Protein backbone atom coordinates (compact mmCIF):
# COMPACT_ATOMS: atom_id res chain seq x y z
CA UNK A 1 0.00 0.00 0.00
CA UNK A 2 2.99 2.27 0.51
CA UNK A 3 3.47 2.48 -3.22
CA UNK A 4 0.01 4.07 -3.60
CA UNK A 5 0.99 6.98 -1.38
CA UNK A 6 2.54 9.82 -3.27
CA UNK A 7 3.62 13.30 -2.37
CA UNK A 8 0.33 14.76 -3.56
CA UNK A 9 -1.54 12.76 -0.91
CA UNK A 10 0.82 13.73 1.85
CA UNK A 11 0.61 17.40 1.03
CA UNK A 12 -3.17 17.55 0.90
CA UNK A 13 -4.05 15.33 3.80
CA UNK A 14 -1.52 15.57 6.55
CA UNK A 15 -1.76 15.88 10.25
CA UNK A 16 -1.09 19.28 11.67
CA UNK A 17 1.70 19.55 14.22
CA UNK A 18 -0.86 20.40 16.89
CA UNK A 19 -4.36 19.12 16.39
CA UNK A 20 -6.77 21.93 15.54
CA UNK A 21 -10.45 21.35 15.00
CA UNK A 22 -12.04 22.04 12.55
CA UNK A 23 -9.20 21.59 10.03
CA UNK A 24 -9.44 24.19 7.34
CA UNK A 25 -7.94 23.75 3.90
CA UNK A 26 -5.90 26.89 4.43
CA UNK A 27 -3.92 25.80 7.46
CA UNK A 28 -0.17 25.29 6.97
CA UNK A 29 0.65 22.03 5.29
CA UNK A 30 3.39 19.80 6.53
CA UNK A 31 4.55 16.52 5.14
CA UNK A 32 4.65 13.42 7.33
CA UNK A 33 5.69 9.90 6.53
CA UNK A 34 3.26 7.05 6.91
CA UNK A 35 4.98 5.68 10.00
CA UNK A 36 4.92 9.11 11.64
CA UNK A 37 1.20 9.32 10.98
CA UNK A 38 0.61 5.83 12.40
CA UNK A 39 2.70 6.70 15.42
CA UNK A 40 0.84 9.94 15.95
CA UNK A 41 -2.49 8.12 15.70
CA UNK A 42 -1.53 5.57 18.30
CA UNK A 43 -0.49 8.32 20.75
CA UNK A 44 -3.69 10.30 20.35
CA UNK A 45 -6.49 7.75 20.08
CA UNK A 46 -9.13 10.21 21.20
CA UNK A 47 -8.41 12.82 18.53
CA UNK A 48 -11.76 14.24 17.53
CA UNK A 49 -11.06 14.97 13.91
CA UNK A 50 -11.26 11.40 12.73
CA UNK A 51 -11.40 8.50 15.10
CA UNK A 52 -10.82 5.25 13.33
CA UNK A 53 -14.52 4.42 13.56
CA UNK A 54 -16.16 7.27 11.61
CA UNK A 55 -15.37 8.97 8.34
CA UNK A 56 -16.37 12.47 7.29
CA UNK A 57 -17.58 12.88 3.73
CA UNK A 58 -17.97 16.27 2.09
CA UNK A 59 -20.40 16.71 -0.80
CA UNK A 60 -19.83 19.02 -3.76
CA UNK A 61 -22.00 21.71 -2.17
CA UNK A 62 -20.00 21.75 1.04
CA UNK A 63 -22.19 19.69 3.36
CA UNK A 64 -20.45 17.19 5.60
CA UNK A 65 -21.72 13.77 6.57
CA UNK A 66 -20.20 11.70 9.34
CA UNK A 67 -20.59 7.99 8.74
CA UNK A 68 -19.31 4.79 10.26
CA UNK A 69 -16.23 3.49 8.49
CA UNK A 70 -18.02 0.20 7.87
CA UNK A 71 -20.69 2.09 5.93
CA UNK A 72 -18.21 4.31 4.07
CA UNK A 73 -16.14 1.40 2.80
CA UNK A 74 -19.12 0.01 0.91
CA UNK A 75 -17.67 2.38 -1.64
CA UNK A 76 -14.47 0.91 -3.07
CA UNK A 77 -13.31 4.41 -4.00
CA UNK A 78 -13.57 5.61 -0.39
CA UNK A 79 -12.09 2.33 0.86
CA UNK A 80 -8.96 2.86 -1.24
CA UNK A 81 -8.69 6.48 -0.13
CA UNK A 82 -8.78 5.36 3.51
CA UNK A 83 -6.21 2.65 2.88
CA UNK A 84 -3.97 5.16 1.16
CA UNK A 85 -4.16 7.42 4.18
CA UNK A 86 -6.13 10.22 2.48
CA UNK A 87 -9.03 10.12 4.92
CA UNK A 88 -7.38 11.89 7.79
CA UNK A 89 -9.51 14.99 7.67
CA UNK A 90 -12.54 14.62 5.47
CA UNK A 91 -13.04 13.08 2.09
CA UNK A 92 -14.20 15.54 -0.55
CA UNK A 93 -16.57 14.15 -3.15
CA UNK A 94 -16.75 16.88 -5.79
CA UNK A 95 -18.93 14.79 -8.09
CA UNK A 96 -21.75 14.12 -5.63
CA UNK A 97 -24.32 16.61 -4.32
CA UNK A 98 -25.58 16.44 -0.74
CA UNK A 99 -29.02 15.29 -1.90
CA UNK A 100 -27.55 12.28 -3.69
CA UNK A 101 -24.88 11.61 -1.08
CA UNK A 102 -27.48 11.37 1.69
CA UNK A 103 -29.40 8.82 -0.37
CA UNK A 104 -26.25 6.82 -1.07
CA UNK A 105 -25.39 6.82 2.62
CA UNK A 106 -28.93 5.64 3.43
CA UNK A 107 -28.45 2.76 0.96
CA UNK A 108 -25.06 1.76 2.32
CA UNK A 109 -26.29 1.93 5.92
CA UNK A 110 -29.19 -0.39 5.15
CA UNK A 111 -26.99 -2.89 3.34
CA UNK A 112 -24.35 -2.92 6.07
CA UNK A 113 -26.97 -3.36 8.80
CA UNK A 114 -28.60 -6.32 7.09
CA UNK A 115 -26.44 -9.41 7.50
CA UNK A 116 -25.77 -11.42 4.38
CA UNK A 117 -29.35 -12.46 3.82
CA UNK A 118 -29.26 -15.84 5.50
CA UNK A 119 -32.77 -15.42 6.79
CA UNK A 120 -35.67 -15.23 4.41
CA UNK A 121 -37.18 -12.27 6.30
CA UNK A 122 -34.02 -10.19 6.10
CA UNK A 123 -33.70 -10.97 2.39
CA UNK A 124 -37.33 -9.96 1.69
CA UNK A 125 -36.89 -6.80 3.74
CA UNK A 126 -33.77 -5.81 1.79
CA UNK A 127 -35.49 -6.54 -1.52
CA UNK A 128 -38.42 -4.31 -0.68
CA UNK A 129 -36.05 -1.59 0.54
CA UNK A 130 -34.21 -1.74 -2.77
CA UNK A 131 -37.46 -1.62 -4.71
CA UNK A 132 -38.61 1.50 -2.85
CA UNK A 133 -35.16 3.05 -3.02
CA UNK A 134 -35.28 3.35 -6.79
CA UNK A 135 -38.77 4.82 -6.90
CA UNK A 136 -37.43 8.27 -7.62
CA UNK A 137 -37.62 10.70 -10.53
CA UNK A 138 -35.45 10.08 -13.56
CA UNK A 139 -32.94 12.79 -12.79
CA UNK A 140 -32.29 11.46 -9.28
CA UNK A 141 -31.99 7.93 -10.66
CA UNK A 142 -29.30 8.95 -13.15
CA UNK A 143 -27.48 10.97 -10.49
CA UNK A 144 -27.52 7.83 -8.34
CA UNK A 145 -26.02 5.81 -11.19
CA UNK A 146 -23.28 8.38 -11.68
CA UNK A 147 -22.58 8.47 -7.94
CA UNK A 148 -22.51 4.68 -7.68
CA UNK A 149 -20.15 4.57 -10.65
CA UNK A 150 -17.84 7.25 -9.23
CA UNK A 151 -17.89 5.82 -5.71
CA UNK A 152 -17.62 2.27 -7.08
CA UNK A 153 -20.47 0.71 -5.09
CA UNK A 154 -21.20 -2.43 -7.08
CA UNK A 155 -24.54 -3.40 -5.52
CA UNK A 156 -25.97 0.09 -5.95
CA UNK A 157 -24.70 0.31 -9.53
CA UNK A 158 -26.25 -3.09 -10.32
CA UNK A 159 -29.56 -2.05 -8.74
CA UNK A 160 -29.81 1.29 -10.55
CA UNK A 161 -28.64 -0.09 -13.90
CA UNK A 162 -31.16 -2.94 -13.67
CA UNK A 163 -33.88 -0.38 -12.96
CA UNK A 164 -32.99 1.72 -16.01
CA UNK A 165 -32.69 -1.45 -18.14
CA UNK A 166 -36.22 -2.42 -17.08
CA UNK A 167 -37.41 1.02 -18.16
CA UNK A 168 -35.77 0.57 -21.58
CA UNK A 169 -36.92 -3.02 -22.21
CA UNK A 170 -39.50 -3.47 -24.90
CA UNK A 171 -39.39 0.10 -26.15
CA UNK A 172 -38.50 1.17 -29.66
CA UNK A 173 -35.66 3.70 -30.02
CA UNK A 174 -38.20 6.46 -30.67
CA UNK A 175 -40.14 5.60 -27.52
CA UNK A 176 -36.89 5.58 -25.54
CA UNK A 177 -36.02 9.03 -26.86
CA UNK A 178 -39.44 10.32 -25.89
CA UNK A 179 -39.45 8.76 -22.42
CA UNK A 180 -36.02 10.06 -21.53
CA UNK A 181 -36.00 13.25 -23.57
CA UNK A 182 -32.97 12.27 -25.64
CA UNK A 183 -32.04 14.05 -28.84
CA UNK A 184 -31.55 11.97 -31.97
CA UNK A 185 -28.08 13.03 -33.11
CA UNK A 186 -27.85 10.71 -36.12
CA UNK A 187 -27.95 11.85 -39.71
CA UNK A 188 -30.32 9.76 -41.87
CA UNK A 189 -27.29 8.07 -43.45
CA UNK A 190 -25.84 7.19 -40.04
CA UNK A 191 -29.20 5.87 -38.90
CA UNK A 192 -29.34 3.58 -41.92
CA UNK A 193 -25.77 2.46 -41.21
CA UNK A 194 -26.67 1.54 -37.64
CA UNK A 195 -29.70 -0.38 -38.83
CA UNK A 196 -27.57 -2.36 -41.27
CA UNK A 197 -24.87 -3.08 -38.67
CA UNK A 198 -27.43 -4.58 -36.33
CA UNK A 199 -29.67 -6.35 -38.83
CA UNK A 200 -28.08 -9.70 -37.95
CA UNK A 201 -29.82 -9.70 -34.58
CA UNK A 202 -33.26 -9.67 -36.17
CA UNK A 203 -32.81 -12.19 -38.96
Amino acid at each position, binding site marked *: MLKNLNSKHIQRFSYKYLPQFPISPNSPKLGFSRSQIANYRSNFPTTIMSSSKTIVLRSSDGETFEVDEAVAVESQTIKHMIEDGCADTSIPLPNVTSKILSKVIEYCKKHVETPNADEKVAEEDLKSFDADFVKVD*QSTLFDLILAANYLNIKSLLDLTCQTV*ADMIKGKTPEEIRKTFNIKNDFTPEEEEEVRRENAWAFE
Partner: protein
Amino acid sequence: MGSGLSSFLLMCSNSTSSVSSIPPESNLGDLPESVVGSVLVYLNPQEICRVASVNQAFRRASTAEFVWESKLPKNYELVLSRVFDCNELGLNCCKKDIYARLCAPNSIDGGTKKVWLDKGTGKACVLISSSGLAITGIDDRRYWSWISTEESRFRSVAYLQQIWWFEVDGEVEFPFPCGTYTLYFRLQLGRSGRRFGRRVCNSDHVHGWDIKPVKFQLSTSDGQKAITQCYLTNLGKWHLYQAGDFVVEDSKVPMKVKFSMTQIDCTHTKGGLCLDSVLIRPK
Protein backbone atom coordinates in the same frame (compact mmCIF):
# COMPACT_ATOMS: atom_id res chain seq x y z
CA MET B 1 -21.24 14.72 -15.21
CA GLY B 2 -24.68 16.04 -14.46
CA SER B 3 -24.30 16.43 -10.70
CA GLY B 4 -20.91 18.16 -10.92
CA LEU B 5 -22.20 20.63 -13.47
CA SER B 6 -25.34 21.33 -11.49
CA SER B 7 -23.41 22.17 -8.32
CA PHE B 8 -20.99 24.37 -10.29
CA LEU B 9 -23.88 26.37 -11.70
CA LEU B 10 -25.39 26.61 -8.25
CA MET B 11 -22.15 28.11 -6.95
CA CYS B 12 -22.07 30.56 -9.86
CA SER B 13 -25.61 31.68 -9.29
CA ASN B 14 -25.00 32.11 -5.55
CA SER B 15 -21.89 34.21 -5.96
CA THR B 16 -22.75 36.41 -8.92
CA SER B 17 -26.57 36.33 -8.67
CA SER B 18 -26.69 37.57 -12.22
CA VAL B 19 -27.28 34.17 -13.69
CA SER B 20 -30.09 32.30 -11.98
CA SER B 21 -30.78 29.07 -13.71
CA ILE B 22 -32.21 25.74 -12.72
CA PRO B 23 -29.28 23.31 -12.60
CA PRO B 24 -29.46 21.03 -15.65
CA GLU B 25 -31.01 17.74 -14.69
CA SER B 26 -29.27 14.46 -15.33
CA ASN B 27 -30.45 12.92 -18.52
CA LEU B 28 -30.01 9.38 -19.82
CA GLY B 29 -28.45 10.93 -22.89
CA ASP B 30 -25.74 12.55 -20.79
CA LEU B 31 -24.47 9.41 -19.10
CA PRO B 32 -20.93 8.41 -20.07
CA GLU B 33 -20.62 5.42 -22.41
CA SER B 34 -19.19 3.08 -19.79
CA VAL B 35 -22.23 3.71 -17.59
CA VAL B 36 -24.66 3.20 -20.50
CA GLY B 37 -22.77 -0.02 -21.17
CA SER B 38 -23.39 -1.13 -17.60
CA VAL B 39 -27.11 -0.64 -18.24
CA LEU B 40 -26.99 -2.53 -21.56
CA VAL B 41 -25.49 -5.59 -19.85
CA TYR B 42 -28.96 -6.18 -18.38
CA LEU B 43 -30.61 -6.34 -21.81
CA ASN B 44 -30.59 -9.31 -24.18
CA PRO B 45 -28.60 -9.12 -27.45
CA GLN B 46 -31.57 -8.23 -29.65
CA GLU B 47 -32.53 -5.38 -27.35
CA ILE B 48 -28.96 -4.10 -27.30
CA CYS B 49 -28.96 -3.99 -31.09
CA ARG B 50 -32.28 -2.21 -31.09
CA VAL B 51 -31.26 0.55 -28.66
CA ALA B 52 -28.08 1.21 -30.66
CA SER B 53 -30.22 3.49 -32.83
CA VAL B 54 -31.21 5.81 -29.96
CA ASN B 55 -28.23 8.16 -30.17
CA GLN B 56 -24.48 8.20 -30.80
CA ALA B 57 -23.60 7.44 -27.18
CA PHE B 58 -25.91 4.40 -27.19
CA ARG B 59 -24.41 3.26 -30.46
CA ARG B 60 -20.90 3.39 -29.04
CA ALA B 61 -21.96 1.75 -25.79
CA SER B 62 -23.67 -1.04 -27.73
CA THR B 63 -20.34 -2.01 -29.27
CA ALA B 64 -18.45 -2.03 -25.95
CA GLU B 65 -16.32 -5.12 -25.42
CA PHE B 66 -17.44 -5.74 -21.84
CA VAL B 67 -21.10 -5.73 -22.85
CA TRP B 68 -20.66 -8.52 -25.42
CA GLU B 69 -18.16 -10.40 -23.30
CA SER B 70 -21.02 -10.88 -20.84
CA LYS B 71 -23.21 -12.32 -23.62
CA LEU B 72 -20.71 -14.73 -25.15
CA PRO B 73 -20.55 -18.20 -23.59
CA LYS B 74 -17.70 -18.65 -21.14
CA ASN B 75 -15.97 -21.09 -23.45
CA TYR B 76 -16.41 -19.02 -26.60
CA GLU B 77 -12.74 -19.35 -27.54
CA LEU B 78 -13.10 -23.13 -27.56
CA VAL B 79 -16.25 -22.82 -29.66
CA LEU B 80 -14.47 -20.49 -32.09
CA SER B 81 -11.61 -22.91 -32.61
CA ARG B 82 -14.08 -25.77 -33.16
CA VAL B 83 -16.23 -23.88 -35.63
CA PHE B 84 -13.58 -22.04 -37.60
CA ASP B 85 -10.64 -24.19 -38.68
CA CYS B 86 -7.95 -21.65 -39.18
CA ASN B 87 -8.04 -18.28 -37.53
CA GLU B 88 -10.28 -16.74 -40.16
CA LEU B 89 -11.97 -14.63 -37.58
CA GLY B 90 -8.76 -13.00 -36.41
CA LEU B 91 -8.06 -12.00 -32.86
CA ASN B 92 -8.63 -8.32 -33.53
CA CYS B 93 -12.29 -8.92 -34.17
CA CYS B 94 -14.47 -7.15 -31.64
CA LYS B 95 -16.62 -9.24 -29.32
CA LYS B 96 -19.84 -8.02 -30.90
CA ASP B 97 -18.71 -9.27 -34.32
CA ILE B 98 -17.66 -12.58 -32.80
CA TYR B 99 -21.12 -12.95 -31.31
CA ALA B 100 -22.77 -12.04 -34.61
CA ARG B 101 -20.64 -14.53 -36.55
CA LEU B 102 -21.35 -17.32 -34.09
CA CYS B 103 -25.10 -16.65 -34.23
CA ALA B 104 -25.18 -17.29 -37.98
CA PRO B 105 -25.31 -20.98 -38.98
CA ASN B 106 -21.78 -22.22 -39.69
CA SER B 107 -21.00 -25.54 -41.36
CA ILE B 108 -18.58 -27.87 -39.65
CA ASP B 109 -17.32 -31.42 -40.18
CA GLY B 110 -17.34 -31.23 -43.95
CA GLY B 111 -20.79 -29.73 -44.26
CA THR B 112 -22.54 -32.56 -42.43
CA LYS B 113 -23.32 -30.36 -39.44
CA LYS B 114 -24.43 -26.79 -38.83
CA VAL B 115 -23.75 -24.90 -35.64
CA TRP B 116 -25.02 -21.59 -34.33
CA LEU B 117 -25.54 -19.80 -31.05
CA ASP B 118 -29.05 -19.08 -29.90
CA LYS B 119 -29.30 -15.28 -30.14
CA GLY B 120 -31.18 -14.77 -26.90
CA THR B 121 -29.29 -17.09 -24.57
CA GLY B 122 -25.86 -17.54 -26.16
CA LYS B 123 -26.14 -21.35 -25.95
CA ALA B 124 -25.17 -23.55 -28.86
CA CYS B 125 -27.49 -25.28 -31.34
CA VAL B 126 -26.14 -28.15 -33.43
CA LEU B 127 -27.91 -29.62 -36.45
CA ILE B 128 -26.61 -32.91 -37.83
CA SER B 129 -27.61 -33.77 -41.36
CA SER B 130 -28.81 -37.25 -42.30
CA SER B 131 -25.67 -37.50 -44.42
CA GLY B 132 -23.68 -37.30 -41.18
CA LEU B 133 -25.54 -40.20 -39.57
CA ALA B 134 -24.86 -43.94 -39.74
CA ILE B 135 -28.05 -45.32 -41.28
CA THR B 136 -28.31 -49.10 -41.56
CA GLY B 137 -28.91 -50.06 -45.14
CA ILE B 138 -28.39 -46.59 -46.54
CA ASP B 139 -26.48 -47.93 -49.49
CA ASP B 140 -29.18 -50.34 -50.48
CA ARG B 141 -31.48 -48.71 -52.99
CA ARG B 142 -34.26 -51.15 -52.09
CA TYR B 143 -34.48 -49.49 -48.70
CA TRP B 144 -33.18 -45.94 -48.71
CA SER B 145 -32.81 -43.20 -51.27
CA TRP B 146 -31.80 -39.57 -51.23
CA ILE B 147 -34.28 -36.94 -52.33
CA SER B 148 -33.49 -33.32 -52.74
CA THR B 149 -35.83 -30.90 -51.07
CA GLU B 150 -36.18 -27.27 -50.05
CA GLU B 151 -37.71 -28.22 -46.73
CA SER B 152 -34.39 -28.97 -45.09
CA ARG B 153 -31.45 -26.80 -44.04
CA PHE B 154 -29.38 -29.31 -45.97
CA ARG B 155 -29.87 -29.99 -49.61
CA SER B 156 -31.27 -33.49 -49.35
CA VAL B 157 -32.99 -35.85 -46.94
CA ALA B 158 -32.96 -39.62 -46.67
CA TYR B 159 -36.16 -41.38 -47.65
CA LEU B 160 -37.05 -44.89 -46.46
CA GLN B 161 -39.22 -47.01 -48.69
CA GLN B 162 -39.31 -50.07 -46.48
CA ILE B 163 -37.06 -52.02 -44.17
CA TRP B 164 -37.20 -54.59 -41.37
CA TRP B 165 -34.24 -53.48 -39.34
CA PHE B 166 -34.51 -49.75 -38.85
CA GLU B 167 -31.50 -48.23 -37.12
CA VAL B 168 -29.99 -44.77 -37.28
CA ASP B 169 -26.93 -43.92 -35.17
CA GLY B 170 -24.88 -40.82 -34.82
CA GLU B 171 -22.53 -38.93 -32.61
CA VAL B 172 -21.23 -35.43 -32.20
CA GLU B 173 -18.44 -33.90 -30.17
CA PHE B 174 -18.78 -30.21 -29.41
CA PRO B 175 -17.77 -27.75 -26.66
CA PHE B 176 -21.32 -26.98 -25.58
CA PRO B 177 -21.66 -23.95 -23.27
CA CYS B 178 -23.02 -24.82 -19.84
CA GLY B 179 -26.72 -25.55 -19.69
CA THR B 180 -29.40 -28.12 -20.42
CA TYR B 181 -29.89 -29.31 -23.99
CA THR B 182 -32.56 -31.40 -25.71
CA LEU B 183 -31.93 -33.71 -28.67
CA TYR B 184 -34.57 -34.14 -31.38
CA PHE B 185 -34.93 -36.17 -34.57
CA ARG B 186 -36.59 -34.25 -37.39
CA LEU B 187 -38.81 -36.70 -39.25
CA GLN B 188 -41.76 -36.75 -41.58
CA LEU B 189 -44.10 -39.57 -42.48
CA GLY B 190 -44.73 -39.34 -46.17
CA ARG B 191 -42.76 -37.93 -49.03
CA SER B 192 -43.41 -34.29 -49.84
CA GLY B 193 -42.93 -32.61 -53.14
CA ARG B 194 -44.35 -29.85 -55.25
CA ARG B 195 -46.93 -30.22 -57.92
CA PHE B 196 -48.21 -27.22 -59.84
CA GLY B 197 -46.54 -24.97 -57.28
CA ARG B 198 -48.35 -26.51 -54.34
CA ARG B 199 -46.96 -28.75 -51.64
CA VAL B 200 -48.20 -32.29 -51.84
CA CYS B 201 -47.37 -35.25 -49.66
CA ASN B 202 -47.22 -38.78 -50.95
CA SER B 203 -48.02 -41.25 -48.19
CA ASP B 204 -48.16 -44.38 -50.33
CA HIS B 205 -45.23 -46.06 -48.60
CA VAL B 206 -46.12 -45.09 -45.04
CA HIS B 207 -46.71 -48.23 -43.02
CA GLY B 208 -45.62 -50.10 -39.92
CA TRP B 209 -45.17 -47.24 -37.49
CA ASP B 210 -48.33 -47.90 -35.54
CA ILE B 211 -47.48 -51.51 -34.67
CA LYS B 212 -44.62 -51.02 -32.30
CA PRO B 213 -43.08 -47.79 -30.96
CA VAL B 214 -39.75 -46.39 -32.02
CA LYS B 215 -36.94 -46.21 -29.44
CA PHE B 216 -34.82 -43.07 -29.17
CA GLN B 217 -31.66 -43.23 -27.08
CA LEU B 218 -28.95 -40.81 -26.15
CA SER B 219 -25.81 -41.06 -24.03
CA THR B 220 -23.01 -38.65 -23.23
CA SER B 221 -19.31 -38.96 -22.56
CA ASP B 222 -19.86 -38.18 -18.87
CA GLY B 223 -22.34 -40.98 -18.35
CA GLN B 224 -25.74 -39.36 -18.84
CA LYS B 225 -28.36 -41.51 -20.56
CA ALA B 226 -31.88 -41.03 -21.81
CA ILE B 227 -34.36 -43.36 -23.52
CA THR B 228 -37.71 -42.43 -25.03
CA GLN B 229 -40.21 -44.62 -26.80
CA CYS B 230 -43.03 -43.25 -28.88
CA TYR B 231 -45.13 -43.87 -31.94
CA LEU B 232 -44.53 -41.78 -35.02
CA THR B 233 -47.56 -39.73 -35.93
CA ASN B 234 -48.16 -36.46 -37.81
CA LEU B 235 -48.56 -37.69 -41.33
CA GLY B 236 -47.38 -35.26 -43.97
CA LYS B 237 -45.69 -32.77 -41.66
CA TRP B 238 -42.18 -32.40 -40.34
CA HIS B 239 -42.06 -33.08 -36.64
CA LEU B 240 -39.35 -32.94 -33.97
CA TYR B 241 -39.33 -36.13 -31.95
CA GLN B 242 -37.65 -35.66 -28.58
CA ALA B 243 -35.00 -38.21 -27.71
CA GLY B 244 -33.93 -36.82 -24.35
CA ASP B 245 -32.06 -34.15 -22.42
CA PHE B 246 -28.51 -33.82 -21.22
CA VAL B 247 -26.79 -31.32 -18.97
CA VAL B 248 -23.42 -29.70 -19.59
CA GLU B 249 -21.69 -28.62 -16.41
CA ASP B 250 -18.09 -28.22 -17.50
CA SER B 251 -17.84 -26.25 -20.70
CA LYS B 252 -14.04 -26.51 -20.84
CA VAL B 253 -14.24 -30.11 -22.01
CA PRO B 254 -16.03 -30.86 -25.32
CA MET B 255 -19.05 -33.07 -24.73
CA LYS B 256 -19.43 -36.19 -26.84
CA VAL B 257 -23.05 -37.17 -27.42
CA LYS B 258 -24.08 -40.51 -28.96
CA PHE B 259 -27.66 -40.97 -30.10
CA SER B 260 -29.74 -43.49 -31.96
CA MET B 261 -33.19 -44.21 -33.25
CA THR B 262 -34.20 -47.84 -33.66
CA GLN B 263 -37.16 -50.00 -34.55
CA ILE B 264 -35.68 -53.46 -34.93
CA ASP B 265 -38.72 -55.66 -34.47
CA CYS B 266 -38.29 -57.74 -37.58
CA THR B 267 -41.76 -59.24 -37.59
CA HIS B 268 -42.98 -56.29 -39.59
CA THR B 269 -41.66 -53.85 -42.09
CA LYS B 270 -41.90 -50.08 -41.87
CA GLY B 271 -41.42 -47.38 -44.41
CA GLY B 272 -42.45 -44.10 -45.94
CA LEU B 273 -40.25 -42.08 -43.60
CA CYS B 274 -38.23 -38.98 -44.42
CA LEU B 275 -35.24 -38.47 -42.15
CA ASP B 276 -33.89 -34.93 -42.27
CA SER B 277 -31.63 -34.27 -39.33
CA VAL B 278 -30.89 -34.41 -35.65
CA LEU B 279 -31.18 -31.16 -33.71
CA ILE B 280 -29.60 -30.31 -30.38
CA ARG B 281 -30.80 -27.07 -28.86
CA PRO B 282 -30.99 -25.49 -25.42
CA LYS B 283 -33.97 -26.56 -23.36
